[in-house]
């Protein structure tokens, strides 16, 4: 547990020193969201209808943008080899890395989401569900992304390859994340969708560290 928190603390410290990285992701999230009103037109009705989906797609893309860096710098400077040789299970290392990614990417996205809701004319009833859905959904994104980030280490075309591997696996989170907001907008309980999102997060928590750790092991072999 100590090494787990030490790893998270290390990653957070690194993220603070390179704060522009996290801010770039946040700026990307906001810019992608802003593009939609400009593209589909500023009519409030249309924006309110597509708002939840736009926020989710932008969050997915923003989370993915920072994902390829989850293990890349450790792989480049050899830290990863030490982590693989370290006496802690590699699965714990993966969990620490994914948690740090969520703290530096997922949390800022959640914090910025209400502002995006205002820009997209989201109905007031939708905000609670949007924030809850993002809070339950973004950890899954970081965890699933860890598998992809570990798989592409040392490959020739990292970023584009990562999106091809990971975006299809993000689809369930996207579907239920948007469905939760839609439900709350139509005065139906968003509870089932939120429970499914929580289930996806728990399943990702239990399952993704194994393939990610396997990928890391074969990457440094």
């Amino acid at each position: 547990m100590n090494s787990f928190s030490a790893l998270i603390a290390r990653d957070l410290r690194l993220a603070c020193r390179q704060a522009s990285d996290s801010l770039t992701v946040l700026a990307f999230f906001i810019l992608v969201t802003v593009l939609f009103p400009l593209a589909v037109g500023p009519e409030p009705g249309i924006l309110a209808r597509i708002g939840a989906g736009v926020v989710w797609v932008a969050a997915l893309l923003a989370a993915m943008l920072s994902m390829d860096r989850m293990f890349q710098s450790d792989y480049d400077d050899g830290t990863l080899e030490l982590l693989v040789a370290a006496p802690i299970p590699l699965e714990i290392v993966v969990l620490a890395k994914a948690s740090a990614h969520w703290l530096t990417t997922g949390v800022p996205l959640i914090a910025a989401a209400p502002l995006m809701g205002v820009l997209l004319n989201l109905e007031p009833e939708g905000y609670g569900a949007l924030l809850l859905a993002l809070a339950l959904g973004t950890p899954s994104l970081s965890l699933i992304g860890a598998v992809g980030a570990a798989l592409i280490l040392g490959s020739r075309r990292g970023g584009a390859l990562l999106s091809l591997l990971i975006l299809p696996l993000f689809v369930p989170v996207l579907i239920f994340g948007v469905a939760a907001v839609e439900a709350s907008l139509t005065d139906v309980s968003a509870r089932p969708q939120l429970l499914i999102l929580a289930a996806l997060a728990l399943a990702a928590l239990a399952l993704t560290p194994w393939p990610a750790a396997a990928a890391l092991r074969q990457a440094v072999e």
Partner: protein
Amino acid sequence: MHRFANPTRFVALVRAVQPWAAGIALVTLAAGLWFSLIASPADYQQGETVRIMYVHVPAAWMAMFCYSSMAGASAVTLVWRHAVAHVVARATAPIGASFTFLALATGSLWGKPMWGTWWVWDARLTSVLILLFLYLGYMAIENAFDDRARGSRAAAILAIVGAVNVPIIKFSVDWWNTLHQPASVVRLDGPAIHPSMLTPLVLMAVGYTALYLWILALRVRADINMSKVRALTLRGA
């Protein structure tokens, strides 16, 4: 299984299987096409478009069968470092992707006259589309490394992770209200389809499976020969 980790022995097995697979594929596909296009009744609701089903349904089965084989072979690769299992997985990927594309394309051709649209975003169609992307991702990561062994292992892990999609495809028509109809052949209470339509369907399914084995045999032999060529070139250089 370990007996066939030796490529030479495995190629001998593949050589033995190949003519049988080719023969069965040609005979059953010819018979299946004759039954499905000529000698079976038109549907009372769908009319002649029901004949698309005989191409579509076995293709969709093969799409899932190929992915399951690929994931299974990948697991064998990772667990036992089996030398040939990955060749099978790698050779399966483009075949499975083609079957998936065939299923999507024929389904779309059937959907236009029947549903009035080429495409709907229901759970079955979406999950099969994701299956196609998983195949594409597998082939992309396979070729993304200068070191082929690394590409093999990374692709194997991806194939196993993507296997979660297979049960989702199978049960998507039960879990969600889909426009796509639920299972009518593989059911606990027996097939809900008339024998005159089941015969061509089964023939086509057997034909597709034999076709898969035939192409797989060709691709596996080509792959192993390519490795030999590469090894000889390296030795010569």
